[in-house]
């Protein structure tokens, strides 16, 4: 991955309205290449909506999302994936009647890399081993455990060969050991050249992994910066815990 000068992703004043509900209110931030950048905030803050707007699953009501200098607003989900920006879903939904390998193959064949034949098979194996699913390759996705399903979700996105990977709560529902594994995987992926955006509730994981983060509440950005500073910001503390609490980070 060549080192880009300048941000790899620029979100400018993105707003999203659902009927009378303003889910996102003019959110702006930049992500540098090779960063692990987290998006946090209480439930309902608009984090998943933000991801949906970025990948084209949902059209923003206003604002722009520029990826490697190109405007993404108005493009379809599949077009954005082909350009190198992909996301995982909070509620994992694999192709249940397909094998784990085939689930991954979809991204290999149709994602950014569009591989065929032997190269495609190699890439599937590569992704399987990176997410430690090799021993489950021929199994029907419907029978996997939740931990395996979460890894499969990452694997499917990884298969597309992205430059930026958006992880939506990959650690939800995992036990502490699995969380450690997940954190190690995220670090490894970044070290391999990816830029990672994460929506995450586990404050410990966020603080431990992120280079920078942005905090949303009620659709608005209320803080941005390095974890240590942002998590100490009184507005952030108030958002999570109510007004009169002190928090030691």
């Amino acid at each position, binding site marked *: 991955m060549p080192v880009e000068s300048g941000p790899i992703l620029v979100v400018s004043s993105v707003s999203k309205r659902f*009927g*009378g509900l303003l889910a996102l209110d003019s959110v702006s931030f930049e992500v540098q290449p090779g960063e692990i950048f987290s998006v946090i905030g209480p439930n309902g803050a608009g984090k998943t909506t933000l991801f949906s707007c970025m990948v084209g699953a949902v059209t923003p009501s206003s604002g722009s999302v520029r990826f490697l200098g190109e405007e993404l607003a108005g493009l379809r989900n599949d077009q954005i994936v082909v350009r190198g920006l992909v996301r995982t879903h909070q509620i994992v939904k694999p192709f249940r009647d397909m094998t784990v390998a085939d689930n991954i193959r979809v991204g290999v064949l149709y994602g950014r890399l569009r591989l065929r034949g032997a190269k495609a098979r190699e890439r599937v194996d590569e992704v399987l081993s990176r997410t430690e699913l090799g021993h489950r390759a021929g199994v029907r996705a419907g029978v996997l455990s939740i931990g395996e399903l979460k890894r499969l979700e990452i694997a499917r996105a990884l298969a597309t060969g992205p430059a930026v990977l958006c992880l939506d709560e990959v650690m939800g529902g995992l036990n502490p050991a699995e969380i450690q594994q997940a954190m190690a995987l995220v670090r490894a992926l970044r070290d391999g050249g990816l830029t990672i955006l994460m929506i995450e509730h586990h404050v410990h994981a966020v603080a431990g992994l992120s280079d920078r983060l942005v905090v949303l509440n009620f659709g608005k950005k209320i803080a941005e910066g390095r974890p240590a500073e942002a998590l100490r910001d009184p507005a952030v503390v108030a958002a999570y815990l109510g007004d009169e609490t002190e928090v030691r980070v």
Partner: protein
Amino acid sequence: MQKLVVVALNSLLAAGLYATMSYGLAVIYGVMRIINLAHAGLMMLAAYATFALNDRFALDPFLSIGIVAPAFFLIGMGLYATLIRWLPRSSAGPSMQSLLLLFGVWLVLQNLAYSIWGGDTQSILTPYTMESIPLLGGRFGVPQILVFLASILSLVGLNLVLRRTFLGKAIRAVTQNRDAAMLSGVNAGQIAAVAFGIGTAFAAMAGSMLSTLYAFTPDFGRSFLLKAFCIIVLGGMESFTGVAVGALVLAFIENFASAYTSIPVSYQDAISFTLLVVVLVAAPGGLPGLWRTFDRRVVAR
């Protein structure tokens, strides 16, 4: 201007029947998220039943609604108990399985009518079939007026049940949020059975009414089914008032087209089919959805 009044009145008369016909589909869809293709067959069968009662016992078709509707209510509940209840429920909306199953039921009903009454066109003739009443410059057929009155009665009745009875409230609750309704103590299975019965009864009422206006064969019902579907999509799939509005809109478009354009009658069915496709594609939220897009000041539900 005069012509417009006549067209408007004709539309109103037709809308009543269309609404009755469409509510049958809407209730079932609302409660079970199932698209009842057998609706067409049930309307057709009810038309034949009305015909048979008229033929054998000289019973006036409108009076026979009092027999046909309750009988079909029971048939509907029976269909639910034997077939529908075994279908797996999919959270993501209506399933192909249910669609095709009810399609099969429709075919069986067609064959049933064919075996009993043959494939010849039937119609019902009453002393007043040919009569018409002059009103506001136009002549309106007596059967059309009676159909309108009957459909208004049925709709008022449905409205009363939905708003004033516990059953009605339960139906509305399950339509809006099945899980929440169950948590509140509603037996969703029973409600589904009753809803299927009501939907079938309304199909039957529409069928009886249609038998006074049109000639019919066992193949009858497909174009009306498509019209009904067009109406509930127009009205927004989950809104009960929307169905009435959709019925008015479709009836008006049809009558307008036949009065003011030279589109031959045989093509008129193509109008509702095309409208159906257009609405499904361009305005999937129906008219309420269009309304919401235009009026941003509408506060979220």
